């Protein structure tokens, strides 16, 4: 029995991804799954956990002796300690979707666990921080276009996704409006359905990367590619090799003038836009969730050896971690 602890069920991309990964796990014939959430939890109708809960996987009581404990953030580790106490012999699978304390606080790193990073960008950050003792498994950034709203045939205007850089996003929007193009802009985090709907009729999407320490899961960029929008990204270290300048995106500096110029150029040049959209579709084909599913199932298949390696890593003297990156 695999017990999934969901202490803080959210609505964002990370929660969607985690729920999806639990669904992949259900295909393993030798492992049964159950979810636990705090009794006070009221799931939002759009919650990604809703489908799992309604299929009878959600239990009010945690399993007393699970064969595997699946956790994803610090709140889960806190609950694991409360429910099961310090049990270093209980196999744990830690799905990491961020770099900061919210993902590895409450003693998560002090206990052995099979650590799995969601996305190569996050894995790279975790390797750099040298906080983990265990070998790191990585799941690729993946998305199926079928899970998105169908895009409109006639697309126009620009969408600026800049929840982490509202000033820059606003400057880009103002520049595009001044140039006579329609432009919408995310200045505070939008719900998943909101930005997906905004992409439906956008010809160009400008995606401003999350700041260091907050790697995203590549979902927005993949969604833009899936919905046939030409992508402009600011040139931070690229997530999972999703972008190649001129092939499936325009990669610019995080500078308003340069981003405006790139977006304007794309809005005016339909041939270039079509080329990037085609490149995006090729990338998307390589990032379908079948690959993510396969990788996760491989992790589960090799769980005994990964778990042994994790325990062995904790038997060795601890590494001195680098100071937290800002």
């Amino acid at each position, binding site marked *: 029995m695999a017990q999934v602890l969901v202490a803080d069920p959210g609505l964002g991309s990370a929660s969607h991804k985690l729920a999806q990964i639990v669904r992949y796990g259900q295909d393993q014939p030798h492992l049964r799954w159950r979810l636990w959430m705090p009794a006070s939890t009221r799931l939002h109708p759009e919650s990604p956990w809703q489908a799992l809960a309604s299929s009878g996987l959600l239990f009010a009581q945690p399993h007393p002796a699970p064969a595997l404990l699946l956790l994803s953030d610090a709140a889960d580790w806190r609950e694991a300690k409360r429910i099961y106490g310090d049990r270093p012999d209980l196999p744990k699978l830690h799905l990491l979707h961020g770099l900061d304390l919210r993902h590895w606080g409450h003693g998560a790193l002090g206990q052995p666990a099979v650590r799995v990073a969601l996305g190569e960008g996050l894995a790279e950050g975790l390797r750099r921080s040298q906080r983990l003792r265990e070998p790191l498994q990585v799941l690729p950034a993946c998305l199926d276009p079928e899970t998105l709203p169908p895009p409109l045939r006639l697309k126009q205007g620009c969408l600026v996704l800049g929840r982490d850089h509202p000033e820059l996003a606003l400057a880009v929007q103002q520049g595009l409006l001044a140039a006579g193009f329609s432009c919408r802009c995310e200045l505070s985090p939008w719900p998943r359905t909101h930005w997906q709907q905004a992409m439906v009729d956008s010809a160009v999407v400008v995606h401003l990367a999350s700041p260091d320490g907050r790697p995203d899961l590549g979902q927005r960029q993949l969604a833009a590619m899936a919905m046939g929008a030409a992508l402009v990204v600011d040139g931070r270290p690229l997530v999972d090799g999703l972008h190649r300048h001129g092939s499936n995106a325009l990669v610019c500096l995080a500078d308003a003038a340069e981003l405006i110029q790139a977006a304007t150029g794309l809005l005016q040049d339909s041939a270039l836009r079509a080329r990037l959209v085609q490149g995006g579709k090729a990338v998307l*084909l390589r990032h379908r969730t*079948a690959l993510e*599913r396969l990788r996760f*199932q491989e992790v589960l298949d090799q769980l005994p050896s990964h778990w042994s390696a994790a325990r062995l890593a904790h038997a060795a003297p601890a590494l001195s971690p680098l100071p937290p990156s800002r």
Partner: protein
Amino acid sequence: MTDISSHPLWHNTEREFLRAERLIERAVDQLQAQGLQHQQERARVGLELERALAPIQSLSAGLQQVIETMAQQRQENRLQRWQGELQNLLIPVDEAELQLQELLLQLEQPTSEHWQGQPLAEARPAIQRLQLQLLLSQRQRQVQQLQAELKELRLRCWTLETSGSAGSPQPEPDGLQGGSAPGPPAIFG
């Protein structure tokens, strides 16, 4: 008086210079031949790379088509797994294709400013001009040496001719200063 051009040192120098010229010519010819060979070799490697790329591109397109077809159908778990495996297979194929394309791109870049296109044919006049300038300056130096030698010989002759007149003051070697005594003509300043 002997003519400069008949002096043995002049002849020796001229011979040496001609020999040097011939050596330079030969070296330039060899370089030209090597450059041509190098270009041919690059073209051959480029062709081989293009040949290697073709099956990889075809494999990549085939895999993409299969993945696309599978994705369009409602899939069982097993098919999903196969699709994932195909995506997995596509990764090294993509990497190989990218590397070959980068190699091809690098191969098409000129190796240096002076060796692109038909470099030696274009650079030949400039090389010859440089060779001639070198030769000219070397010959000028040689002429100056001969002039100095000639001057010394004339001085010696004049000393021998005037040694009979005892007590007469010795003129300055170039005969331009000191009294009215005739000195050797100063033809080379």
